[in-house]
């Protein structure tokens, strides 16, 4: 399989993630959508590392992405918890105190 297939997969994953982020109101699911988008990046990185196989930058990058995604999830969940404590919901539609 050529790079194009992997890229298509990544694009689809990224698209699903983005669509999920935009359409879902549940903050948890939005978080997961973002994780999906980050993972699609990993696919791209790994695929391209096959093309540019002189070094392993792509793969290294992917590891970092995984690590950072975890950190991001941690912070995100913490914020989510704080949000839930106040609002008793994790629906982002209710976050409308700040506007205009």
């Amino acid at each position, binding site marked *: 399989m050529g*790079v194009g297939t992997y*890229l298509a997969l*990544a694009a689809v994953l*990224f698209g699903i*993630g*983005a669509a999920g*982020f935009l359409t879902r109101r549940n*903050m948890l699911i*939005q*978080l997961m959508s*973002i994780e999906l*988008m*980050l993972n*699609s*990046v990993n696919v*791209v*990185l790994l*695929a*391209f590392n096959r*093309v*540019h196989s*002189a070094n392993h*930058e*792509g793969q*290294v*990058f992917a590891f*970092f*992405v995984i690590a*950072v995604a975890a*950190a*991001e999830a941690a*912070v*995100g969940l*913490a*914020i*989510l918890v*704080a*949000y839930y*404590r*106040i*609002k008793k919901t994790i629906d*982002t539609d209710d*976050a409308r*105190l*700040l*506007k*205009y």
Partner: protein
Amino acid sequence: MSAVDFMGVSPLLLLVGAGLALMLVDAFSAERSELALVTAASLFAGAALAGSMLVSGELPAAPELVTRYLAADRLGLLFDVVICVGGGLSALLAGGYLREHGLERGEFYVLLIFTAFGAMVLARAVDLLSIFLGLETMSLGAYALVAYRRTSARAVEGAVKYFLLGSFAAAILLFGSALLYGATGHTDLAGIREVVAAGDADPILAVLALVMLLVGLAFKVGAVPFHMWVPDSYEGAVTPVTTFMSVAVKAAAVAVLIRVLVGAFGDEASMSLYTGWTPVIFLLSIATMVYGNLAALAQSSVKRMLAYSSVAHAGYILVGIAAAHEVGAFAVSAVLFYVAAYTVSNVLAFGSLILMGSKGKEAVSYDDLAGAGRRHPMAAFPFVIGVLSLLGMPPTAGFFGKYYVFSAAVQAGGPMVWLAVLGVLASGVGAYYYLKVIVYLYMREPEEGQAIAVPMQSIYVVAALVLSAYYVVKMGIMPGRYLDWAVSAASSFMS
């Protein structure tokens, strides 16, 4: 490898050390009252370190292992100074603010230092990987800082929005990075530049990557239409955090924008006035200046007004970047100066706002300021200087900064001149809402029965105001030295 070899990144190391030490101190000390001072001192020390290296003729050394990811150039040092000064001043403001409002906890300062560290990493990042890491280090800290006042619905809501959108933007940026890697086979910006300039990069991938990187960075800078998080999270966060975000985080984002656009995509074809990223930045800056200024006009909260004004100022910064295709070093130095001037001006304005309130009655809206100039002339005066500088009245730093970026635009010639025209007109609109502050301070009296905001008593805040006011005036009247720094940083970066 001796310690001297790491001089180039010593400000970073200093901050890491300070952050770790602060964690220890916070954990073991019962009396944590002077953490603000320690934090500010460390950040100012970082600034002093970076500043001393900046003025000394030679560039400090750093091992190739480091410079492969983090530049040890003058541009980086200059941003070190800006971020550390912005962070230090914010720490001082926090020292007064948090105590006054009973919010002081140790983790705040640790987060502040590490966020500043992340910002500095980002500002020095010369590799897609370090860009990503710096960005996330900074952002994660910033998310947490926004949410710091966790019992406040506004703060948490601001954090939620900031976090979700920030992560989304980061994902886009990351995807762009991956595509760029694919297009060029490089993750380091220098390598990418070589391949792109030679025309060897896959054009479709390169263009897509450019678009996505540009969007991701425009988000961090707060350019319209990627600015939507700015007013909300700025308003939700406690004011010292708002200050910090508007100066340090934005400065880092500008730095990396310069490194990516002018650095990696700095070849003639990529930055062409008609076909490259220049027209995109051109249009973004128009949208940002117009939107920021007009929306700020409609606000009744000073804090939110300053948030929108921060958007507007991002627009002025983009004017300078858009001019880089024609007058590279000049335009970049204009942006650098502008960022520095904006940092001190904004700290002054936000700091004055902080100073105006006290426990139980924080000054937020215009009404809270009514008549304050009459009651508390000494507290009101720095506010006047601050807003005049943001407005761009001579002889303040803000004026010179504006003059500088518009000068770059005019020098770039052609349609860029009209960008400058539009920019000054937009800043003319700005006069209305900045003046409104002075109107409320000096020309209005509070309505009957309205709670009156009483200025707080805090040596920290006063110190921050005095420092920033000093630099606002000094950079306006005697800008020479700062200009030289900006020019040397910009020209060393461009060469």
